[in-house]
C-alpha cells in the first residue's frame, strides 16, 4: 500500500512549525540559523511531495535552487556572525540591538 501524499505534506507542515518555534524563541544566532535550515528543508519536502502528486519534475528542480540559496545564505550568515562575534564577543540576539531602532 502506498503512502498518501497528504501525509508527507502534513509531516512537512509539522517540521516547518517546529522550525518556526525555534527561530522565534532561540537567542543564540547559530540556533536561529539551524531552525531556518529546518524550515527550508520542510519547504523542500512539500515541493518534492507535490512533484510526486502532479507527476512533474518542476518541483524537484526548484529544490535544487532552494538548496543553492540555502548554501549561499548559510555562508554569508555565518560569515556575518563571525564578524559580529569579533566586535561584540557574543551572538546572543537579545544583546545585538545595533540595528533595532
Amino acid at each position, binding site marked *: *500500500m*502506498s*503512502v*498518501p*501524499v*497528504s*501525509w*508527507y*505534506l*502534513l*509531516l512537512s*507542515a*509539522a*517540521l516547518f*512549525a*517546529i*522550525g*518556526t*518555534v*525555534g527561530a*522565534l*524563541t*532561540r*537567542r*543564540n544566532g*547559530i*540556533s536561529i540559523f*539551524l*531552525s531556518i*535550515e529546518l524550515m527550508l*528543508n520542510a519547504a*523542500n*519536502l512539500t515541493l*518534492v511531495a507535490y*512533484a*510526486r*502528486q502532479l*507527476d512533474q*519534475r*518542476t518541483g*524537484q*528542480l526548484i*529544490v*535544487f535552487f532552494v538548496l*543553492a*540559496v*540555502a*548554501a*549561499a545564505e*548559510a*555562508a*554569508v550568515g*555565518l*560569515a*556575518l*556572525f*563571525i*564578524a559580529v*562575534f569579533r566586535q561584540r564577543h557574543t*551572538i546572543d540576539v537579545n544583546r545585538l540591538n545595533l540595528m533595532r531602532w
Partner: protein
Amino acid sequence: METLIFFIFAALALGSALVVVAHKSPVYATLSLVLTLVSTAVLFLLLGAPFVGVLQVLVYAGAIVVLFLFVIMLLNLQKEGSAEGPGAQLWAALLGAVLFLGMLGLAFRRVALPAPPPLTAESVSLKGLASDLFGEYLLPFEIVGLLLLVAVIGATVAARRPGEPASLSENEEEIAP
C-alpha cells in the same frame, strides 16, 4: 512496507527536529540536524526523487552542516544560559505553531488528493531532470551560479579581520618599509 519506512523516518525526522530546536548546546543541535536531513533524504527516495535525496545528503549534510560545525567551534560558543527565559515569547510561538498546524491539517482533511500516478522508470530518471535543468531552466541555473559567486565573495569580505586591507597584506607590509 513503504508505510513502515515512511513512519520510521517521519518519526526520526520529527524527533531530531525537536532536538534541534530544544537542545541548549549548538553542537548537538547541529548533529541532530544531520539526522533530520538524512531522514528527509530517505523520504525523498520514497517520493521517487533519488537525485534530490542524494543531493540533500551531499550538499546539506555534507557541506552546510560542516560549515556550521566549523563556525561553532571557531566561535567557541557556550551553552545558552537559561536566565531570563523566553516565557511569553515561547508560548506565543507555540500557539502560532499549533494554529498553523491545525489550519493545514484541516485543509488536508477537507481536500482529498487523488492517488498519484505510479512511478515509472522515465519519471525518476536523471536524464529528464538534467534536460529540464539545462534547457527550460538554464537562465535560473546561471543566476544561481552568480548568486553563489556573490555569496562566496561576500562571506570572504564579511569574515575578514577589520583593518586588514587585503589577503596578501603581510607580504606587502614587509616590502613597504
